[in-house]
């Protein structure tokens, strides 16, 4: 019997020791993890806080009332309702699984710290209500702040993304499908978001040259600098837009995506083309210059020919006598064989060519914007004279067949302008009129161009009206656009009217309009301000 008692004592001691060990271990663990332990009795509202619980907030143990209210009193007023709601929800559901909430607590210094509270019910009463719920608090302030900063920066990025005037597209790296596009993309390319999300560039025929997409993605993938690469794209309506593309792989919301930014340079390209065309015209001036010397020789030799065939020149008479030539007879022969006419033709053709070259040089040289007070009627006459010498190689129109009437109002003031540029505009309009009239399937009996110059308020008004085929409405809208042309390929550049529009409105501050009655004719009206 004594043995049994001793055995029981030993077993008890051993068990107590084991419990103490466990408690020590728990204590150590608690201290090691710095977990702030609490235990709540939801029925009484009593709470037990561990020492760590106090210290993570900088309080001394016992400084906070050990109750639900004590805890609630430290919670940020904005967070308390939600935290309480989550707790009640947990308790009402019978305390299944675990409770978790994030809230700000006020520490000893008065600062708000983000805390994560986690707990789990371990005891219930007969009615199934939770009577014991231990849990712990973890200081998550640093992570929370970082999360918010990330959220803010993502929000900022999102705003920049959406509002940027450049087109921005996010592509999935693997599938090459469009993940997101910004507003500018939709506007510039003419799509709705629904039409493009989830599609690849190929599926919506984005690239004018499909190989461009391969090149672009490959370059970005290799990590090579991909900045301002000029690529042409199709809009939804088939029109081409040229973009400067920059792209790279970026991390967004934890995922690696392809970010592509496109800067629309379509207009810029058009202006570039315009300038190149103008350059070509300017170099034409260089060629014209080279032609002048041989042309000079033609003219001068013809003039000398005339001089030397004259029978009244002393030196001619002398030379003729010396060889026994009857110079009068020679003159007669030359006249009967029309050699005098031929020489005159050569001379006048050379003079005419000289005149054309002079005018060409005049308006093909780089406009150093020499502004002078110009007499518009003179400019119009110059342009007409050039137009008359103008006929295209296929001889589809001959300006001389058109009857031109010029009416100039009395006392039209001089206008401050660059003469060559206004001449260029006039010539362009005249050419267009002539071509349009020549291309009519049924020719007008009397193709006419009326030019009226008058004063109108503080501007000088020039109207150029033809009785040609007119311009239909849908064409009229686009007629001043660069590169718009109704002529076949290779005929004209489609730049004429747009350059003219630019010269009148932007360079001279005037107005340039077109009105037309299909079947009746077209009128171009120019207003130029005068001082």
């Amino acid at each position, binding site marked *: 019997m004594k043995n049994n008692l001793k055995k029981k004592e030993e077993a008890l001691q051993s068990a107590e020791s084991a419990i103490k060990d466990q408690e020590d271990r728990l204590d150590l663990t608690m201290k090691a993890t710095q977990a702030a332990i609490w235990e709540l009795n939801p029925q009484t509202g009593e709470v037990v806080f561990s020492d760590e619980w106090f210290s993570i907030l900088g309080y001394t143990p016992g400084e906070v009332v050990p109750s639900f209210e004590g805890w609630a009193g430290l919670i940020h007023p904005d967070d308390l309702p939600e935290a309480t709601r989550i707790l009640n929800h947990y308790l009402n559901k019978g305390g299944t699984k675990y409770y978790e909430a994030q809230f700000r607590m006020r520490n000893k210094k008065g600062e708000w710290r983000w805390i994560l509270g986690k707990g789990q019910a371990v005891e219930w009463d007969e009615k199934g209500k939770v009577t014991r719920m231990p849990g712990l608090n973890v200081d998550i302030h640093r992570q929370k702040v970082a999360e918010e900063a990330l959220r803010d920066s993502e929000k900022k990025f999102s705003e920049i993304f959406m509002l940027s005037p450049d087109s921005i597209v996010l592509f999935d790296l693997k599938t090459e499908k469009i993940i997101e596009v910004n507003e500018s993309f939709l506007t510039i390319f003419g799509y709705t978001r629904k039409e493009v999300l989830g599609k690849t560039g190929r599926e919506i025929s984005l690239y004018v040259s499909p190989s461009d997409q391969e090149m672009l993605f490959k370059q970005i993938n290799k990590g090579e600098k991909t900045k301002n690469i000029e690529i042409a794209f199709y809009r939804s309506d088939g029109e081409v837009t040229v973009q400067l593309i920059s792209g790279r792989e970026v991390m967004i919301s934890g995922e690696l995506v392809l970010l592509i930014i496109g800067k629309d340079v379509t207009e810029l390209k058009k202006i570039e083309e315009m300038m190149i065309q103008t350059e070509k015209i300017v170099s034409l001036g260089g060629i014209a210059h080279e032609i002048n010397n041989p042309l*000079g020789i033609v003219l*001068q030799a013809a003039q000398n020919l005339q001089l030397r065939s004259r029978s009244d*020149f002393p030196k001619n008479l002398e030379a003729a006598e010396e060889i026994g030539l009857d110079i009068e007879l020679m003159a007669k022969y030359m006249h009967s064989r029309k050699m005098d006419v031929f020489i005159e033709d050569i001379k006048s053709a050379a003079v005419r060519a000289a005149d054309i070259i002079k005018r060409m040089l005049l308006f093909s040289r780089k406009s150093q914007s020499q502004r002078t007070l110009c007499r518009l009627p003179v400019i119009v006459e110059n342009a007409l004279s050039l137009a008359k010498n103008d006929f295209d190689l296929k001889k589809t129109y001959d300006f001389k067949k058109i009857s031109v009437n010029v009416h100039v109002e009395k006392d039209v003031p001089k206008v401050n302008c660059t003469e060559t540029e206004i001449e260029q505009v006039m010539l362009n309009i005249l050419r267009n009129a002539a071509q349009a009239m020549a291309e009519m399937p049924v020719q007008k009996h009397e193709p006419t161009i009326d030019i009226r110059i008058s004063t109108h308020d503080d501007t000088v008004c020039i109207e150029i009206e033809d009785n040609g085929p007119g311009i239909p409405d849908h064409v009229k809208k686009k007629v001043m656009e660069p590169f718009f042309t109704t002529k076949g390929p290779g005929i004209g550049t489609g730049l004429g009217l747009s350059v003219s529009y630019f010269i009148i409105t932007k360079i001279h501050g005037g107005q340039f309009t077109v009105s037309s009655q299909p079947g009746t004719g077209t009128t171009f009206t120019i207003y130029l301000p005068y001082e």
Partner: protein
Amino acid sequence: MKSVGQKIFIIDDEKSICRNFLDFFDYYEQFDAVAYLCAEDALDSLNETECPFLCIVDNRLPGMRGEEFINRVRMICPKCRFLICTGSLDIQLTSSFQEIGLTQEDIFFKPVDMFKVLERIEDIIAGKGGTLGYPVCG
């Protein structure tokens, strides 16, 4: 003013143009024309001969340009008149010649009509061609 054998210098790098001018002025006994293919040759000959009454100068010459030639000649021959033949419409050309006293009527754009040149020369002789200011030495 002498109207017989008035000396005219023609300076142009294009031989045929020189020849044509010479042949042209050949008819007009009142003129005695001489041609040079470059400004330097013309200046050299000035050292040995008397001043011409007029020079017809191509602005684009190999070596010394027409403008400089004119300025040099004006130092030696202050009364000499000048006509410019030019293939280009350089604005700078016009303004710098205006400083010398030349006007639009003294400038002929290539290809040059020789009868018009003759008209201008006759105007100058008749006193209708304006005067050039004396060159500023410097």
